[in-house]
């Protein structure tokens, strides 16, 4: 019997041990270790500093001590009570748990503490600049022609315009409530939400759980009742009077309601396709400053019956009814529904305008089954090597062209004796034989849909284990064609891109796959990873402009903290090092440093910020940044360079040999190259 002890005597196992022991981690310098230690300790101390109720002099081990003397429970209760009292007595000092973020400002805007009286506000207004938080307890005021875009943590966005004055009442933890005193707020609210997105106006309360709408508050003299106009461009919004026992009115897509005082003055249907100006565009501020021709077009797609698969230029985009924000131009729209004739149409989508398409699908006349199952014939392949032009589903040929075939009853794989042979071959290690059988079985007409998926999955596992990635890709593409659920398709698209990128090292193909993923799954599970991966590939391929744009899009999506830090640093790095544009890169280093203190990129961001400042001639700020670098990172990678730059700037000439010791990391004069 083969046992563990016997195994120890096996020469091959001994060699295996030697082989495994030969693996050694790459060497590290003491500076690397010192920097790592610095970061670890900074994170621990920052974590304890994050708790304002824990005095800094309190030792970290106090809780274990308390537990040991069995006073933990009363102490914890006392602590909770104390924190509660502090929070209640001074709520505004605690700050929001998860605020919104001002991501774009056009024109002039200001903010001030809401506590200020109107008289004090005049002198308390401070100019609003990006980055800024949209936080509870502050009032924001816009110039008449200005617009401000705010992104919330859940992906919702809104744009303020027309001289808006807004007070944030509640932000963070999935809740949002604000008071719009005047001006316009156009929102795209991501749903479903746990708590509603609420915009209060002087006379109305607009409450939504996931939709697109616009609220206008007219500035009226105090003697007249306030007027609030609400236009809903997607979903539905509950509009209630703030006073009285108004049960509320449900304003639906394409309706415009006007509330005067507590009375719903008018409710009219508006023609959404007729968007008269950029002011009325989807989220107007998002496209301000850009060429109007670049504004996206809106496509409203509907079908009878609803639920048809929609393909835009051959790429699956979802199921009807569907509202899409797409690039303007000539687009081919196809809709398919099982047992219905597909419908194709070519539309010219106008920038900033809504184009509605409604299709009535005709049932397919009864016809004998063809040699291949329906889904096998009509497939939409993801983009990739050899599959650049993703096609629409092929048109079924008229029934008369084909000889009649008997209808086949489908079966599951387990009912085929070949399947058992394949399993036995897999167990016996004869993968070739097993793959051949599984492939043949998966192509049978009488194989049930779920059975075919199961076979393909087994094939993909076997191929991946054996490292046959080209074949794996074709199996994954077949699986994609048969996948029924969106989640499955989402995962398969991502997997295809991953295999092409990491296993086949086909960066061009992976780039196409990721672009296809971004188009096909705009709300996909891997959407942030796809943006990040695409940006990395574009960087690797030397497409620095494209990489910068992709990183920018990822940042605009406000992804998780780790991705945000990574994207900001990479964007700043590309701008300063590859595109040689310190002025554009500098704000990103600054934003990273301001918003993500303690980030793993902090050291590099601070140093390169100092370098950028020096290069654009802001010597004083550069010196401050170098000093900050030296104080925060006494064991940092560029301490000698920083010291040399400080000495050099003081003397007005280069320090001879001042940075010789870390010359491998010494930045060149121009462009910034490490």
């Amino acid at each position, binding site marked *: 019997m083969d*046992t*563990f002890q016997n*195994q120890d005597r096996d020469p*091959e*196992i001994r*060699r*295996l*041990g*030697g*082989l*495994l*022991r*030969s*693996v*050694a*981690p*790459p060497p*590290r310098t003491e500076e*690397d*270790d010192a920097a*790592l*230690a610095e*970061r*670890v*300790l900074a*994170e*621990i101390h920052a*974590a304890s500093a994050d708790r304002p109720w824990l005095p800094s002099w309190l*030792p*970290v*081990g106090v*809780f*274990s001590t308390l537990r040991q003397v069995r006073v933990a429970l009363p102490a914890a209760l006392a602590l909770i009570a104390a924190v509660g009292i502090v929070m209640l007595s001074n709520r505004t000092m605690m700050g929001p748990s998860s605020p919104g973020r001002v991501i774009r400002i056009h024109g002039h805007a200001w903010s001030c503490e809401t506590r200020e009286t109107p008289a004090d506000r005049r002198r308390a207004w401070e100019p609003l600049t990006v980055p800024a938080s949209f936080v509870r307890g502050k009032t924001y005021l816009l110039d008449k022609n200005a617009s401000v875009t705010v992104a919330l943590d859940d992906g919702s966005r809104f744009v303020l315009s027309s001289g808006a004055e807004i007070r944030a009442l509640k932000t963070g933890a999935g809740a949002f409530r604000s008071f719009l005193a005047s001006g316009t707020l156009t929102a795209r609210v991501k749903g479903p939400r746990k708590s509603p997105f609420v915009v209060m106006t002087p006379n109305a309360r607009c409450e939504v759980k996931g939709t697109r709408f616009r609220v206008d508050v007219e500035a009226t003299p105090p003697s007249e009742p306030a007027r609030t106009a609400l236009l809903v461009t997607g979903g539905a919004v509950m509009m209630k009077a703030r006073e009285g026992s108004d049960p509320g009115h449900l304003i639906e897509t394409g309706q415009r309601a006007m509330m005067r005082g507590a009375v719903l003055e008018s409710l009219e249907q508006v023609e959404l396709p007729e968007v008269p100006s950029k002011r009325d565009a989807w989220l107007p501020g998002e496209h301000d400053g850009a060429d109007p021709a670049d504004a996206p077009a809106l496509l409203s797609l509907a079908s009878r019956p609803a639920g048809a698969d929609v393909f835009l230029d051959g790429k699956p985009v979802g199921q009807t009814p569907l509202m899409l924000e797409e690039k303007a131009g000539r687009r081919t729209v196809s809709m398919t529904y099982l047992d219905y004739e597909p419908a194709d149409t070519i539309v010219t989508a106008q920038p900033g305008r809504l184009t509605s398409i409604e299709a009535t699908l005709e049932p397919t006349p009864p016809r004998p089954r063809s040699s291949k199952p329906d889904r096998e014939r009509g497939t939409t392949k993801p983009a990739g090597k050899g599959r650049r032009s993703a096609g629409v589903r092929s048109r079924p040929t008229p029934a008369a062209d084909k000889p009649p075939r008997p209808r086949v009853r489908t079966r599951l794989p387990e009912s085929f004796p070949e399947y058992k042979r394949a399993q036995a071959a897999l167990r016996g290690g004869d993968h070739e034989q097993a793959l051949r059988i599984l492939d043949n079985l998966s192509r049978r007409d009488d194989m049930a849909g779920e059975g075919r998926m199961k076979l393909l999955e087994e094939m993909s596992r076997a191929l991946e*284990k054996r490292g046959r990635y080209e074949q794996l890709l074709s199996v994954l593409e077949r699986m994609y064609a048969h996948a029924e659920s969106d989640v499955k398709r989402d995962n398969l698209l991502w*997997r295809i891109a*991953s*295999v092409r*990128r*990491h*296993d086949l090292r086909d960066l061009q193909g992976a780039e196409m796959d990721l672009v296809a993923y971004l188009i096909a799954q705009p709300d996909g599970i*891997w959407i942030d*990873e796809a943006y*990040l991966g695409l940006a*990395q590939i574009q*960087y*690797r391929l030397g497409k620095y402009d494209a990489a910068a744009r992709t990183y920018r899009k990822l940042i605009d999506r406000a992804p998780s903290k780790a991705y945000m830090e*990574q994207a900001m*640093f*990479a964007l700043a*790095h*590309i701008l300063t*090092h590859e595109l040689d544009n310190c002025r554009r890169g500098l704000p990103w280093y600054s934003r990273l440093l301001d918003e993500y203190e303690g980030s*793993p*990129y902090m050291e*590099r961001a601070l140093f390169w910020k100092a370098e950028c400042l020096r290069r654009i001639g802001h010597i004083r700020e550069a010196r401050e940044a170098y000093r900050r670098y030296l104080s925060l990172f006494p064991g940092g990678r560029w301490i000698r360079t920083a010291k040399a730059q400080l000495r050099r700037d003081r003397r007005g000439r280069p320090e001879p040999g001042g940075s010789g010791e870390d010359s491998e990391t010494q930045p060149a004069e121009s462009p910034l*190259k*490490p």
Partner: protein
Amino acid sequence: MAPNSRKNDRVLQLVAESVRGSRRAQNELFAAYRGRVWSLTYKSLGPDFDIEDTVQKVFVNLFKSLPAFKGLSSFDTWVYRICVKVCTDRLRGKYRKSRLRVVRSPDNGGEEFYGAVESTPGSELERRELEAEIFKALEKLSEQKRMAVVLYEMEGLSMEEIADVMGTPTGTVKSRLFHARNQLRKLLIKHLREQ
């Protein structure tokens, strides 16, 4: 007093001081264990992961849970336990998000960033290729088998120590190791016969 005992006393003293918030003691503790943690992390995860980030996570977890260290097991075992847990979590994370690779800083001109082939001497390149194959083979093992092999074959821990670290009976460790070795032998057979 035996040197081992003296060393243990010193470590326990450092632990106590670190719990009290002494930065010097924390630094010393970090210096004492950084090599072991770095090595185990690299061998457990391979070059596709951000080792520095993982090591940072291990030490942060370690320092945060220092007050809970009761001295029931040796401090080394305790450090290994935290490290194994963090690495296993990372491996599971990789499984969930299949093939999400690490992105390092583009500071070094993007070469390190994107894992480009480096212009290294032939032997070094061969070593790296072999190492890549070893990690590829290790990837095929389950996390628990992989950790057992790493701790036993690569880190040189005894069965009992591994059982203590992984919180399983020694028999289970032996069984995992037995199957893991067999699997690895099949995957790396050409290197075992060539030698």
